[in-house]
């Protein structure tokens, strides 16, 4: 049985080699996802604003500095509000902050000054970030200039000594989605190809068990998927990702890939078309990536999204990857249960792939 499975695997891998363009395209799909999500992460960083602040005096300079060093804004100094409007219209900034020339004198003499904020309120999410950034800037300005006069102060207590960048956090989920899409594509395409080319009849007539075929397909999918996912991981290492638990990382890498290669074999047996496997992989991969804790723990998501995510293995794979790479758990379940669910998924996926293949063969 094992020898037959080995032959199926070898044949499968050779087929990938004789069709290099399709194979390379499939291997590169997860890398493409990585690039796309890096673009997304870059876009989710600080708010680009034009800052009009000429000779605004001592307080004006202090406020300028607070804006330039804020966690919210990426400020670009400009000459006038007109330049600010031009930058907004050209989609180079989304807001203009204008500190008037009389800022310092007004604040010193009248105890009151104003700042003009022009917002390209494209949507409520972006606009609110811009609006909420100003009180923080003013709080920091007041704390630096009028420390004894602030009516209410606060002390921030961070749970972790270092705040991971958005890109680093996101990159862990990108590794999971690379395994998901790579696994589904390699498992699914390899199996669907047998029906498309009509070679399934030869496999059915061969003196080997269906189990050997499934095992061979799984093994081939694991090898190809590994190549693809390793490429993504190497790029992530270049981005500065440094795992803290290599053993756990290797384990979750293999189990996750196994789950999706198995499900890929099942999908390939059901749809019998490589052409359908491809959009299905994307359609499954993207929503599950976003839903399964890509941006933060699912407990902070909407209840419906959290409930949907908790059904799928992507969530548990993400949580374990976060722990292996960043060192913290993003789910309150005990680690043994998180691992248990992922392993149950692996066993279930194996059974599903075997049943799907057998049913497809019987109905053929």
């Amino acid at each position, binding site marked *: 049985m094992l020898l037959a499975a080995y032959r199926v695997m070898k044949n499968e891998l050779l087929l990938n080699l004789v069709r290099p363009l399709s194979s390379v395209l499939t291997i590169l799909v997860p890398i493409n996802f990585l690039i796309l999500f890096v673009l997304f992460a870059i876009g989710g960083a600080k708010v680009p604003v034009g800052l009009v602040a000429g000779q605004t005096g001592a307080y004006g300079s202090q406020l300028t500095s607070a804006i330039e060093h804020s966690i919210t804004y990426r400020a670009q100094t400009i000459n006038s509000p007109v330049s600010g409007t031009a930058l907004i219209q050209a989609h180079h900034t*989304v807001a203009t902050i204008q500190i008037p020339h009389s800022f310092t004198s007004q604040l010193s003499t009248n105890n009151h000054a104003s700042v003009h904020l022009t917002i390209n309120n494209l949507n409520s*999410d972006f606009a609110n970030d811009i609006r909420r950034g100003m009180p923080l800037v003013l709080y920091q300005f007041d704390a630096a200039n009028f420390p004894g006069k602030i009516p209410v102060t606060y002390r921030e207590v961070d*749970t972790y000594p270092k705040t991971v960048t958005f890109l680093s956090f996101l990159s862990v989920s990108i590794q999971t989605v690379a395994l998901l899409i790579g696994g589904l594509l390699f498992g699914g395409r390899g199996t669907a190809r047998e029906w498309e080319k009509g070679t399934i009849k030869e496999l059915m007539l061969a003196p080997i068990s269906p189990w050997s075929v499934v095992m061979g397909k799984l093994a081939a999918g694991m090898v190809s998927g590994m190549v693809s996912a390793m490429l993504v991981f190497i790029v992530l290492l270049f981005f500065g990702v440094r795992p803290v638990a290599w053993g756990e990382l290797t384990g979750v890498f293999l189990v996750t890939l196994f789950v999706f290669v198995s499900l890929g074999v099942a999908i390939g047996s059901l749809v019998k078309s490589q*052409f359908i496997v491809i959009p299905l992989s994307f359609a499954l991969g*993207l929503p599950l990536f976003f839903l399964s804790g890509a941006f933060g723990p699912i407990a902070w*998501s909407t209840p419906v999204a959290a409930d949907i995510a908790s059904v799928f293995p992507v969530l548990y794979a993400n949580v374990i990857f976060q722990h292996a790479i960043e060192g913290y758990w993003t789910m309150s379940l005990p680690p043994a249960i998180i691992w248990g669910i992922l392993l149950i998924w692996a066993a279930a996926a194996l059974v599903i792939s075997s049943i799907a293949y057998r049913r497809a063969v019987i109905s053929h």
Partner: protein
Amino acid sequence: MDQLHILWAIVKKDIAIWLRSPAVMAVTLLPAIALMLLLVLQAAAVQGSPVAIVNLDKSGRAAMQLENVTTHYGGFYSATVMNSTEANHAFQQLSVSAILTIPKAFSYDLSIGKTPNLTWQVRNFNEDTANDLRRALPDLLSQFEKSYSTSSKLPVITIHEQDLHAKDATFIGFNLVAVIVMLVLQAGVVNAGLASVREWESGSIKELLMSPSTALTLITGKVIAGVVASDAVAMIAMGLAMIAGIIAVPSITLALWALLLTTLAGVFGAGIGVFLGTVFRNMERVSVLSVMLSFYLFFLAGGITDIAYFPGWLQTIASFVPNSYAMDGLRSALLYGSAVGMGTDALALLLAAVVGLVIGVPALRRGLSH
């Protein structure tokens, strides 16, 4: 006249095949549907994460006012009043992302002019969620200070806000436009691309070559079929969004602008589709490439953000991506009710459509001559 009949037959045939082929429909619609589903599911969570409030000054008026401002603050998904033990448990269980603790003497300190100090415990998993929380507290404190007169002598700095649009578009509406543009392009690429591949894969290219159809009629038919498919899916998607109240019903002029922009985007997509179909002549490869291309163009054009957030080099790339102009124009028409900049967007898309045809048509012509 004969060529017109043939053209009509080719368009009808390609659209009929598209409508009857679940696989092609899946390639066209699934990526966009997946993105849309995601937006709907995540929309509520975008406004912020859940937090806990521990008020140790239950009898104080100022503390109650701060508690009230916090529970009604729009920057949190939810803000729940808890006792200290419950809040710590919820924090450990990750049910809340932060705890705001109002100290016991908060109201008294404020009343005698002393500065009370709050504690803001933040689960700083990553910069994105942590910075949202860091921005939220000063914002809600400024709201509290406006609603509760303190004896503070702190100089007042007023923010005069001026918004460019009458109201903020919703998160779903804003992103839906990007998804519609992706759908338009995908429909054009897939329908024209796979319609071309199919002729080679099924061998029907020989029959077409032997028919009285000229190469130009054949190519025009493929492109028109792609554009019709693009416009059809765009109209259906926009119609559904209007029925659901996600986007407002535009004026006739703006609706015509929207139709023009989707048509031009569809022509670009169809040109690219014909090119991919002719060069690769394989359904599987064309389907991978078309899906990847759609996603690339979607993200490079800003996707669910705006290109202003990109670094300079990426903004330059985005300015060459047709989706950027289609998204800009459609958002103006459907979300902000404005035609400002529409001419520039239409011109850029016209140029993109010409480029698409210049790439696609000669490739198919060469393919036919072989």
